[in-house]
């Protein structure tokens, strides 16, 4: 079992024939992901990486039956692409592109919600169900199949966390990179219940960072509804106030969004909170051996 995606998930790529889209679609295909086509306006009818290219998402969905779209279009066109996917009946849009304007994401996410489409990202590494389906840009080989679910705002911390879990002899069910922009799609609050319901997931690793209050909301949810052990790390304990730390959303504004308050909330919710990402693997081992 897994969450959201598995070996049967049919995926299309928006921005299929571009440089990034091509490179990563190829990697996903090599991993075993069922990429059944892609969309690039004015290239409909062509073939790319052995798959059909369509002019519109609607056409691609109608012909291929795809339910997930992986989006690589340039930042200025992300909002448009997400709304197109939503209206075409896509169930989950995985938005990899970095640097999408915040206003566009407000509009696009609201539109997606209206059409019942889930979104992931933008500016995220994507989602991977170990040894089954990779939709994103993560290095597939570090994700061994196992019983740990992972949710992270940061791409490289997703890899760091998964790598440690696997080095400890465990593995991953599904790892989800949610991105660190001010407005993101699926987040802890939606993903935690999915992992709670997934029979194969026995432990959840949650990696957050400074800025916003998604981790605080997650803590409240964990306290009430999550029975599985949660290992958490919050990046940015040493970040100065008022400075954006790489991710557009990673900023401590005034006294809000600090690592300290998030760590305290998670601790109070019963999660094992580690002070360094170097301790994630050991904490998972401890949680699973209880």
């Amino acid at each position, binding site marked *: 079992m897994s969450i959201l995606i598995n070996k049967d998930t049919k995926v299309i790529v928006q921005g299929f024939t571009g440089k990034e889209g091509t490179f990563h679609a190829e990697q996903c295909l090599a991993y075993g992901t069922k990429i059944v086509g892609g969309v690039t306006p004015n290239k409909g009818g062509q073939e790319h990486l052995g798959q059909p290219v369509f002019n519109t998402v609607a056409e691609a969905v109608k012909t291929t039956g795809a339910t997930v779209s992986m989006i690589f279009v340039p930042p200025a066109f992300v909002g448009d692409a997400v709304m197109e996917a939503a209206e075409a009946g896509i169930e989950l849009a995985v938005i990899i592109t970095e640097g999408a304007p915040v206003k566009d994401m407000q509009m696009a996410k609201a539109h997606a919600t209206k059409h019942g489409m889930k979104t992931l990202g933008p500016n995220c590494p994507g989602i991977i169900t170990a040894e089954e389906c990779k939709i994103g840009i993560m290095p597939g080989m570090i994700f061994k199949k196992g019983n740990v679910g992972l949710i992270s705002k940061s791409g490289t911390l997703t890899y760091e966390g998964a790598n440690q879990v696997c080095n400890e002899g465990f593995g991953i069910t599904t790892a989800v990179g949610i991105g660190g922009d001010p407005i993101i799609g699926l987040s802890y609050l939606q993903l935690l219940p999915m992992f709670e319901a997934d029979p194969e997931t026995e432990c959840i690793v949650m990696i957050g960072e400074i800025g916003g209050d998604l981790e605080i909301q997650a803590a409240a949810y964990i306290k009430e509804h999550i029975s599985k052990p949660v290992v958490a790390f919050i990046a940015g304990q040493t970040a100065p106030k008022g400075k954006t*730390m790489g991710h557009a959303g990673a900023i401590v504004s005034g006294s809000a969004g600090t690592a300290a308050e998030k760590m305290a909330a998670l601790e109070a919710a019963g999660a094992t909170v580690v002070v*360094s990402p170097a301790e994630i693997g050991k904490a998972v081992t401890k949680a699973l051996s209880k």
Partner: protein
Amino acid sequence: MNIHEYQAKQIFAKYGVPTPKGIMAESVPAAVKAAEQLGGPVWVVKAQIHAGGRGLGGGVKLAKSIEEVRELSEEILGMTLVTHQTTEAGKLVKKLYIEDGADIKAEYYLSVVLDRKLEMPSIIASTEGGMNIEDVAENSPEKIITVPVDPAVGFQGFHGRQLAFGLGISDKTEQKNIISFAKKLFKLYMENDAEMIEINPLIRTGAGEFLALDGKMGFDNSALGRHPDIEAMRDFSEEDADEVEAAKYGLSYVALDGEIGCMVNGAGLAMGTMDTINHMGGTPANFLDVGGSANAETVAKGFEIILKNPNVKAIFVNIFGGIVRCDRIANGIIEATKITDVNVPVIVRLDGTNAPEAAEILKNANISNLIVGSDLGDGAAKAVAAAKGN
């Protein structure tokens, strides 16, 4: 990206958001000329820097004669202003804004910001104008009104009424004026991809009009591409020179006050690396995200920027190679040490794709001050030890 008050007021004017009349001046004669042009009888001489708290720092003063405008301009222009929003070193004042004095009957606070929880912009207002809004939020949260506006429907009449009644404005003309003010401000916020607009204070005059006495604006960097007019307002001299330089090479850099330089791929891991160093008893000298495609050139640039900081006693390079192979990064690091004179110990931890090959390359390079860390914890520990001279 942030802009100056005088620039924000130019944008306000374009949208019909009322402000007192004012003119920007870069010299004392220009300031005097501006004052003459405005006519008086009262002027405000305002330092233009990208930080709040200018008044308390002595950067905003009232003049009652042209002679006083001259004196105050001489005093403020060229001064180093320290406020609660600047560093201790303060900011040099290079521009002034000479503004008409206003007839102030009441002061309010008004801002438009993104509410991340609601995922839409919110108008925030308070009767406690001129105060630090964070203090108001902490001490008397009931005095803060929040009016979220869904961009899909735009600013409606009820938003305006929530605002006017919330601020206790009962005069019908004044209600009409504040609603029109907020409506224009919201339009301006949306159309320019602003990240925040803050007017503190917003004043009500004896005639019942509302004027933006101050104006602070920040923009979504990701949207600047479609606003060349706003991008042109960027004042690089207000920003940290090293951060600007780093950004040219696709590096995201923030200076800190510790001793261990950090070079990491990915923002989350970069923060996590700083936290790990701190946890092990060391102090990070910077945040530096080299991005997803670390190569010899970006790594060399990273070394150069880190080493500009004289406090740096060791550098910790922490890369988790995903799509980018570690062996290529190892070669990049070796190249970089040839381009840049690295005179402090460099601790390198490379993990991920082709990590064993990378370790071999680094070992065979025989660079005297290069130490290999086996994982994040080990690398951080070695960096902390090296910075302490062990």
